[in-house]
C-alpha cells in the first residue's frame, strides 16, 4: 500500500475536536504500518485546523473552504475532490454529526465500499488491502468487514478508533487549497439552524459525570452538576432525563446526543441502555452507581457502587471538597 492514507475531517473544530484527533491518530497508525504518507483533508470549518493537523502528524493537508454549515452535498463533493487530489484508496472519516452520511454517500458516488462504526482499521491478512472491525448490535458484537470491490474504501470511525497524537509545534505539513466544484443547486437548505455551541464542549471534557432516572427527581440533577464542576469536568445526562427536562439537550450523551471519550465517566442512576453506551463506552475509566446490581451498566464499568446515587453523590461531593480544601 504505497498510496497515501487519507483522513477526512468535516467541520473539524478549533482547536481540533476529539473526534478529529482520534481520526488523525488512526490515520497515522495505518499510514505508518504501510510506510505511506498521511494526507488530511479539512472540509469546512476554521482556518487554523490545517496547521494543527500538520503539527499532529499529517504530511500533507488539503483545505476545502465550504463556509459555515456546509450541506451534505457540499461535503460529498469536497470528499470526492480530496480522494482524487490525494491519490488515496483508503479514506477515514472522523466521527461527528456528518460521519454516517458522508462516509456512505462518498463511497456510493465513487463506486467504492464503506463501513461505519469502525473501532479498528488494519491491514488485511491477505493482499494489499485493509479490513475494518466495526461495533455492531449496539456494541454486543464486533464485525470484521472486507471490501471485494475495486473502488475507494471509505471508513467512518467510532469513538476510540485512534489515539490523539501529541502536538509538535516544530512539525509542518504542506498545505494546499482543494478546488471543489460547487453543487449546481442547493437541494437541501437550512431554514433554522441548531443553536451554535459556545464555551467548553462536552465532547472534549476529561471528566464527565452523567445522571439518569435513578436520580429520582429533577432537582437532584444539581448533584451531578456539582460533582462534575468539583472534578473539573462537565455534566452529562441520559436521554430519559433530557426528555423529562431535568437536563438540557446539550447535556445528552448517547446515540442522538454527544459522544464523549473522557478519562473518567461517572454514570449515576443510569441503567446502561445500548443507545446511551454508544455515547460513553470509550471512556478510559467508567464508574457506575446504581441500585440495581443487574443493570447492564455494570458490564461496562471498571468500578461499580451498588447503592442509591442520591445518597452516594452527596458523599462524593463532600469528600472531594474536603480533599481539595486540605491540599
Amino acid at each position, binding site marked *: 500500500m504505497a498510496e497515501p492514507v487519507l483522513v477526512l475531517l468535516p467541520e473539524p473544530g478549533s482547536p481540533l475536536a476529539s473526534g478529529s484527533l482520534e481520526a488523525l491518530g488512526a490515520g497515522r497508525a495505518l499510514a505508518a504500518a504501510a510506510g505511506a504518507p498521511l494526507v488530511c483533508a479539512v472540509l469546512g470549518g476554521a482556518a487554523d485546523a490545517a496547521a494543527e493537523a500538520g503539527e499532529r502528524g499529517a504530511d500533507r493537508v488539503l483545505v476545502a473552504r465550504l463556509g459555515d454549515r456546509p450541506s451534505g452535498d457540499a461535503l460529498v463533493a469536497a470528499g470526492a475532490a480530496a480522494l482524487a487530489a490525494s491519490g488515496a484508496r483508503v479514506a477515514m472519516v472522523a466521527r461527528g454529526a456528518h460521519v*454516517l452520511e458522508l462516509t*456512505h454517500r462518498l463511497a456510493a458516488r465513487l463506486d467504492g465500499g464503506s463501513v461505519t462504526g469502525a473501532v479498528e482499521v488494519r491491514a488485511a491478512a491477505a493482499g494489499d488491502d485493509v479490513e475494518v472491525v466495526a461495533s455492531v448490535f449496539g456494541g*454486543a458484537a464486533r464485525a470484521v468487514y472486507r471490501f471485494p470491490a475495486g473502488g475507494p474504501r471509505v471508513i467512518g470511525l467510532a469513538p476510540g478508533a485512534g489515539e490523539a497524537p501529541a502536538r509538535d509545534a516544530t512539525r509542518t505539513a504542506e498545505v494546499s487549497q482543494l478546488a471543489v466544484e460547487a453543487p449546481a443547486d442547493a437541494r437541501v437548505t437550512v431554514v433554522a439552524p*441548531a443553536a451554535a455551541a459556545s464555551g467548553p464542549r462536552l465532547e472534549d471534557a476529561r471528566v464527565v459525570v452523567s445522571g439518569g432516572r435513578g436520580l429520582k427527581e429533577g432537582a437532584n440533577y444539581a448533584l451531578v452538576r456539582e460533582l462534575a464542576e468539583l472534578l473539573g469536568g462537565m455534566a452529562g445526562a441520559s436521554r430519559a432525563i433530557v426528555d423529562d427536562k431535568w437536563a438540557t439537550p446539550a447535556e445528552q450523551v448517547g446515540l442522538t446526543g454527544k459522544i464523549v471519550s473522557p478519562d473518567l465517566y461517572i454514570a449515576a442512576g443510569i441503567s446502561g441502555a445500548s443507545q446511551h453506551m454508544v455515547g460513553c463506552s470509550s471512556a478510559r475509566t467508567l464508574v457506575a452507581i446504581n441500585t440495581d446490581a443487574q443493570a447492564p451498566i*455494570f458490564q461496562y464499568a471498571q468500578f461499580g457502587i451498588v447503592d442509591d446515587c442520591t445518597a452516594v453523590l452527596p458523599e462524593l461531593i463532600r469528600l472531594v471538597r474536603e480533599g481539595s480544601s486540605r491540599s
Partner: protein
Amino acid sequence: MPPMQIVVCLKQVLDPDGVNAYALWGRLRVDERGTGFVADSAIPQIVNAYDEQAVEAALRLRDAGVDCRITALTVGPDAAAALLRRAIAMGADAGIHVADAAGPGTDGFRTAALIAAAVREIGDVGLVLCGRQGSDYDQGVVPAVLAERLAWPFVSMAAGAQPEGGGAGALRVVRATPLGEETVRVSLPAVVSVSNEIGTPRYPSSRRMMEARRIPPVVRPARELLGGEGPRAVELAQLFIPDVQGHCEVIQGETPEEKAAALLRRLRETRALGG
C-alpha cells in the same frame, strides 16, 4: 394531481435487545460460519424499530393533508413479508416484497441497488423514507447509498416532516443533530432517513390487522430487478464477541459514605483521578 407516491423501506432484524441480553448473560456465541450467532433461533426476528418510525413519518404526512399512496417495501427472504403486513395494518396502502435469499449482514450496497430498481419500476415516486439505520449492524448505509443511486437529495436523522407550502414539491424536515434540532427544506423527490426522536409509532387496530391480510404484497425477485447478481461492495467476513464484560470491581462498604470514600481511593490509586 395524482397522489404522491411514498415508499417506506423496512428491514427484518434480529432483536438487538435479545442479542444484548445474551451478551450480558455471557451466552452469546458466534456460529460455525462465523457470520451469525448460535442463539439466532432463540432470539426473535422483529421489524427494525427505526423503520417503524419511518412508517409513522409517512402516516403523519398523510395526517397533515398530503394526498399520498404509501407503499411499504422490504428486501429479504420469504419470512420478511410478515413485516409488510404490519406496515399495511399501521396504514400503508400496499406492499412490495423484493425476494432475496441473501442472509444476515447483507451488503447494504446491494440492498440499496435493489430498492433503487424497485423505486424506478414504481415510477413517479416523490419520497422514500427509511429508518436511520438497522438496529442490528448499525451501519446506516442503505438510505445514503439509495439517495446516491437515485441521484436524489438526502436528509438524514429526521425527527419530523411536514409538507412545505401548498403543493408537495418540497418538505420541511426537523433533524436531530448533536447540537439540537435543525430545520431544513428539501426539494422532492428525496430520500429521508428517520430517527427515533419522531416518537412512538402508532399501534395498528385489530380491524386493520385483519384487513391487512387481504392485501398481499407484490413479489419481485431480486435477480429480475438487478438483471444479474448485483454489486458487491462490502463483505461481512467474521463476527466476534468482544471481551469487555465482567471486569467490574464492585466497591465494598457499609454506608454510602464508606463506598464513596473507597471509590475515590481506588480512582486515585489507578490514576483515573488526579491528586
